[in-house]
């Protein structure tokens, strides 16, 4: 279980996250919604332990991280829960000198697996994500959607328990979005817990187990996906109206 309690973060005196709590079970999908600048990406950075929160705590299964980080426990973050918990960023960060195949394989091979031992899993992923045609190309030789699938495949091959996804469909066309959206419930069925920062309202309405709506660094409303049908707060109602109008 991934549990965040009262996470807060300041940047140069400006509070960007104000006591956000969240819990995620394996196999669950939590969707984080909110306008730009509401603290969604900061939340993912704190959940992934890439940045230390100023206050609060984070529990990844049995391991507890308390904040503010106590330097006596080692420089932050000395040992993170990676890749049990991993992230796919909006910008993807594929290594540019490696082909997509090498990008996907490097982390598992670097952790001691052999190519033979991951061959079957890779083939399955390539098949599901329809990556066969471009697997041996470099990141700058493929489209945004193809890179997206490779970044997801790189994370999935690591068999994480928790997968954090930051606006991974923002640069994709509708067909590519549909492919990714179809894939996520399959991953959830495999027991991967996911936190998804997204603007995909329809996906949240159909598939998310939990929804978190944020504004100005705070959670305004949260609950099951039914809150998107009957929002209690006027902020979420306004957001949904604006989003529906835009789509």
């Amino acid at each position, binding site marked *: 279980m991934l549990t965040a309690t009262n996470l807060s973060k300041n940047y140069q005196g400006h509070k960007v996250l104000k006591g956000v709590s969240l819990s995620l079970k394996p196999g669950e999908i939590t969707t984080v919604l909110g306008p730009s600048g509401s603290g969604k990406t900061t939340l993912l950075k704190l959940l992934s332990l890439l940045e230390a929160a100023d206050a609060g705590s984070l529990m990844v299964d049995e391991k507890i991280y308390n904040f503010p980080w106590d330097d006596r426990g080692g420089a932050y973050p000395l040992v*993170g829960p990676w*890749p049990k918990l*991993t*992230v796919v960023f909006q910008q993807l960060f594929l290594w540019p*000198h490696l082909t997509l195949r090498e990008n996907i394989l*490097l982390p598992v091979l670097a952790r001691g697996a052999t190519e033979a031992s991951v061959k079957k899993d890779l083939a399955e992923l390539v098949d599901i994500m329809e990556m066969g045609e471009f697997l041996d190309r470099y990141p*700058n030789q493929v489209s945004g959607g193809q890179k997206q699938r490779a970044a997801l495949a790189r994370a999935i091959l690591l068999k994480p328990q928790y997968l954090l996804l930051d606006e991974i469909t923002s640069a994709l066309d509708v067909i590519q979005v549909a492919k990714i959206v179809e894939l996520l419930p399959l991953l959830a069925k495999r027991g991967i817990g996911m936190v998804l920062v997204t603007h995909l309202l329809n996906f949240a309405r159909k598939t998310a187990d939990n929804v978190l709506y944020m504004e100005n660094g705070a959670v305004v409303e949260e609950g099951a996906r039914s809150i998107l049908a009957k929002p209690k707060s006027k902020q979420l109602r306004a957001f949904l109206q604006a989003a529906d109008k835009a789509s």
Partner: protein
Amino acid sequence: MFLTAAQILWEYREAFLKGLAVTLEMSAIIWSVGIVLGFTLGWLGATYRDSVGQVVRWTSFVLGGVPILVFLFWLHYPAQAMFNLVIDPFYTATFTFTVINVVAIAELVRGALMDFPQQYLTAAKVCGVPARQTFLRIQLPLLLRGVIPALLMLQIVMLHTTLFASLISVEEIFRIAQRINALIYKPVEIYTALGVFFLAVSLPVNGFALWFKARYTRDTSEN
């Protein structure tokens, strides 16, 4: 003319070979010490930005602003007079050029490390890639692709810089050429032969730099 140049080279081969040996010995020291210390200092400069990094940056700035010849002459004449020392000009010249090479390489490596896109390391971190593998498989290859062409060009410049050593009486190849020219006055042939020598050394290095750049510095920019 080329025949005459070849005849001169043959006739004075012993002197030329001695000069060539001095030039190559000096270059070998400048290159090897420069690369080892330069990479180490550059890495330390990027790791300890506020201490070593500042020293590398300012030393590079100061040395870059002083002509090499002035630095060489300063170390050869006033510095030795001030400290009442007499040092073989070969060592003075080698030391001077090595210092310049070390600092230039350190600044090159420090800059490349400082500018290294952190997101690639973050991606490795969240994928659980061990630190050693991150360095060997991700950071080092990307870093070398950026640094090696410039590093090789710098080493060619350092080879050419060794000519300055003749001005403080180091018996390197340029000084030997000057002395032979003073004896037989055949400047066209002698300096053409000298040019051919430098081309012969520089071209393979230059060619390797170009090949390396073409082979390993594939355009990785995003559309």
